[in-house]
């Protein structure tokens, strides 16, 4: 690839060629993304203080996790995508193995087995799969001619299907669908032909009744509650009624930080974890939600720009699918809390209180930054 050709594809890269490498290129981090992530985490801690009932303990534990997340991100950013790709098959096999272990020896709560308990700590293998699956599918497809042929699509679907089914068995329908989505994003971004996409959509629609049949009772209950929360206002409908009340009563400018009655008086369930957006909406109002959504939109936009600028398919597919999965978390969480979607246990990325999900997300951003810095390296 000569430099003229390079410029044809990436006209803006021309400036870089003449510039001295910036400070950022040494750190191998993307400055824009880093600033946006720090802002988002700051916003998250700010609202967590209120959502946890003004418990500084929650805030400091969350801050420590975020710090750990940033360390993981910075570490992964130092690796080239090539190394990540090489790890992919092994990580995938390891991940599947762990998921099988969960089903065999896992510990759980509320009728679902999701955890592996090791001496000293326990973790959810499905968290690892959130990163490993897009990595693996991207790695697989990047080495095939694109758009992928039918055979490669089928193999990709098998790669996607295995962890999806295993996680569904735990059962954790929400996570399994999100993980499936992360793999499917790779396929979609790889340029899979539209006729395949429409065919798949048709098949999916046809399969819905079958899905209902295999769902567990509590999952069905969630869907029913979603369709009509008032049918059980004190039972399973309580959460959604209270979260909608919290959001709605916030109005345009909110009740003020620490002054949300729904969240401060414990009417809002899970206010510091999955339902934290309702606290934002109640206390900071519609304006506060818009600020948060703008942050998310900027992060997603930046992620897509990094993906689009990646020099090879692997980087593009990896960064693109990770950032779209990130968006899906945002959408599903806010959709569920505001009553657009059934309640599935999806935290609001980097804002909800919770351990592994923050580290996983930051690791994902580390990979995206790795894709970004690889391109800069090429440019040097």
């Amino acid at each position, binding site marked *: 690839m000569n430099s003229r050709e390079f410029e044809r594809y990436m006209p803006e890269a021309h400036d870089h060629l003449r510039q001295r490498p910036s400070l950022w290129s040494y750190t191998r981090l993307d400055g824009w993304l880093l600033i946006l992530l720090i802002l988002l985490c700051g916003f998250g801690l700010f609202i967590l203080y209120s959502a946890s009932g003004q418990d500084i303990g929650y805030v400091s534990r969350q801050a420590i996790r975020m710090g750990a997340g940033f360390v993981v991100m910075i570490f992964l950013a130092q690796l080239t995508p090539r190394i990540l790709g090489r790890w992919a098959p092994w990580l995938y096999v390891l991940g599947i193995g762990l998921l099988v272990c969960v089903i065999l020896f896992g510990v759980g709560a509320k009728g679902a087995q999701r955890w592996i308990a090791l001496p000293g700590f326990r973790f959810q293998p499905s968290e690892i799969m959130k990163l490993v699956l897009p990595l693996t599918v991207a790695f697989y497809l990047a080495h095939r001619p694109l758009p992928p042929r039918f055979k490669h699509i089928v193999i990709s679907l098998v790669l996607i299907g295995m962890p999806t089914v295993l996680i569904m068995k735990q059962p954790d329908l929400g996570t399994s669908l999100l993980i499936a989505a992360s793999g499917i994003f790779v396929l979609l971004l790889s340029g899979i032909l539209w006729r395949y996409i429409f065919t798949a959509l048709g098949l999916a629609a046809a399969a819905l009744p079958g899905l209902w049949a295999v769902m567990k009772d509590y999952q069905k209950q969630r869907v029913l509650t979603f369709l009509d929360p008032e049918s059980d206002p004190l039972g399973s409908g309580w959460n959604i009624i209270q979260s909608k009340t919290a959001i709605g009563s916030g109005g345009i400018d909110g009740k003020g930080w620490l002054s949300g009655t729904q969240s401060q008086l414990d009417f809002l369930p899970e206010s510091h974890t999955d339902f934290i957006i309702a606290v934002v909406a109640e206390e900071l109002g519609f304006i506060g939600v818009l600020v948060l959504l703008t942050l998310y939109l900027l992060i997603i936009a930046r992620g897509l720009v990094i993906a689009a600028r990646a020099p090879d398919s692997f980087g593009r*597919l990896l960064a693109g699918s990770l950032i779209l999965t990130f968006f899906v978390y945002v959408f599903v969480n806010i959709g569920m809390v505001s009553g657009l979607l059934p309640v599935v246990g999806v935290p609001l990325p980097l804002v909800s209180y919770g351990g592994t999900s923050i580290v996983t997300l930051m690791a994902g951003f580390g990979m995206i930054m790795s894709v970004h810095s690889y391109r800069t390296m090429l440019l040097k």
Partner: protein
Amino acid sequence: MAAERLKDHSKESRTFKIRAVLAFIVVVVMLCVLIGRLYYLQVVEHDRYSAMSEDNRVQLQPVPPTRGLIYDRNGVLLADNRPSYSVTILKEEVKDLDQILAQLQTLIPITEREIKRFKKRLRQRRRPFESVPVRFRLTEDEIAKISVNYHRLPGVRVEAELIRYYPYGESLVHAMGYVGRINEKELKRVEPTNYSATHYIGKLGIEKFYEDQLHGEVGFQKVETNARGRVMRVLERSDPRPGSDIVLHLDLRLQQITEKLLAGRRASVVAIDPKTGGILTMVSTPAYDPNLFVTGISYKNYNALRESPDLPLFNRAIRGRYPPGSTIKPIVALSAIDSGIVKPSYTIFDPGWYTLTQGGRKYRDWKKTGHGRVDMYDSIAQSCDTWFYDVAHKMGVDPMSKYLGMFGFGQVTSLDLPEALGAILPSKEWKKRARKAPWYTGDSLNMSIGQGFFVATPLQLAAATAVIANRGEWIAPRMLKGTKKIDDAGAEVLVDPVFSSAKLPPSDVILNNDKHWNDIIKGMRDVMHSKSGTARRSGANSEYEIAGKTGTAQVVGIKQDEVYDAEKLAEIHRDHALFVAFAPVDDPQIALAVIVENGGGGSTTAAPIARKVMDAYLLGKDLSPEEAANE
């Protein structure tokens, strides 16, 4: 690699960019959906959700008014409100009720009955998030035990409330009644809003009759509660209006002296101020401690009271129906002289008995040997039965029923004693209606000495005596002297009670000849102060003149020719001792009736008690140390 060679990098990059742009558009569209949804909730539907959020957070709680206090005529506090601590359970915070109760039982004693009652109260709870008491009157020790275990007892709290306390206990229970925990039936009767926070209601007596004044008006507070119903802060408050303090005519000192005089007897004394109709003392012994009933009496205590042969629960003063005996003789004499049947000077010879026909049934005089020649004055003073038999024979029942009726017999004349009974004033119509039998002359003879069908309560006897003292002016007996109010100037004033017109007293007793009052009062004076008066010993050495009348009412009929022997008869078959009086004769300040069940003779048992009560009231005399020590 073959596959690698087939790859077209620039095409792949181009495809990706198209897909990425498409993805970005989808992202923006989906974000717009979310924003639209939030806009709908937060802007379009804001008012609805605001209201829902306020409903969640803000609860309107009723605040109970403080119950009005009750004072005696001298300002002594008779019914107080004192803080009492109860352990309560808020159901909303409890997962396993039985387990919490069992845990509580390990800390403080709670009986199965209390648990049963608690569960009943729980079912009758009036609104959500209302805590329900499990046990009342916790001791300091029990409060401490529960407090240190709070963390293990979610939903359990120690709550303070003001509850009624009667400092003089059983001295006043029959005069004042008591309050107790409100029950379902009572809740249906009262105004629900005003009683929404009230747990106690007047059950008996004054507490029941003046419930409206004593209760006050409920207040409300807007409170902020959390999802578990715990009150976080008070947002707004409209204070309850406390119940009015009321003042009774009752004289606590006199009441306590009277109580001492009756100690150990089944007896009753009612004393009235004839000028106001105010009841100065109303004692019925034995009595019981009303404080036991306020938060609910235990089975054991209640059964002991109910099964006591002395009937402590029975309010003799207003519900005891006793044959009045000779105490009504002045009124019987009045009916004869004022209807013109005989003159006061009408004289007979009393051999000790009276017969309607030659050789017929002998109506005995209490004095076997007879009183000899007696007129009306002698007959009242000596309580000669034969004179009254003769006069009753002459006049028949109608004048007696008419005059006795004017003095309030056979009806309830008291204004504010809800449990008072009318007892029975016999008449021809009454006997026909109640006994389905005609009136016989013998019935008239029995009635003339206050026996037979005639029964009256101590209160009725005292009221009738007050009417004599007032020479016919009817001032209905009453407990309430007034209601305390703060006037515009901020000073405390006593507002006169307004009694409903439905309970106006009988019209005044108007005699055909006003002079006849003097005649019977002279007779009653002679009872106390003449040489042959039946109660001359009780009238002796008094600094004021007394008009009285003794009475001895037969409990068991004495058969023909049988001699009454008090010694032989079991105590419960002994005669009731009665006495009525007013004093001083020229300016009556007290009229009273004394009844001592199975006390024997009115002159020996009842009259001395009355004298001491009158001395205590009129002269301020206290009891001798021995009498005061009586319990």
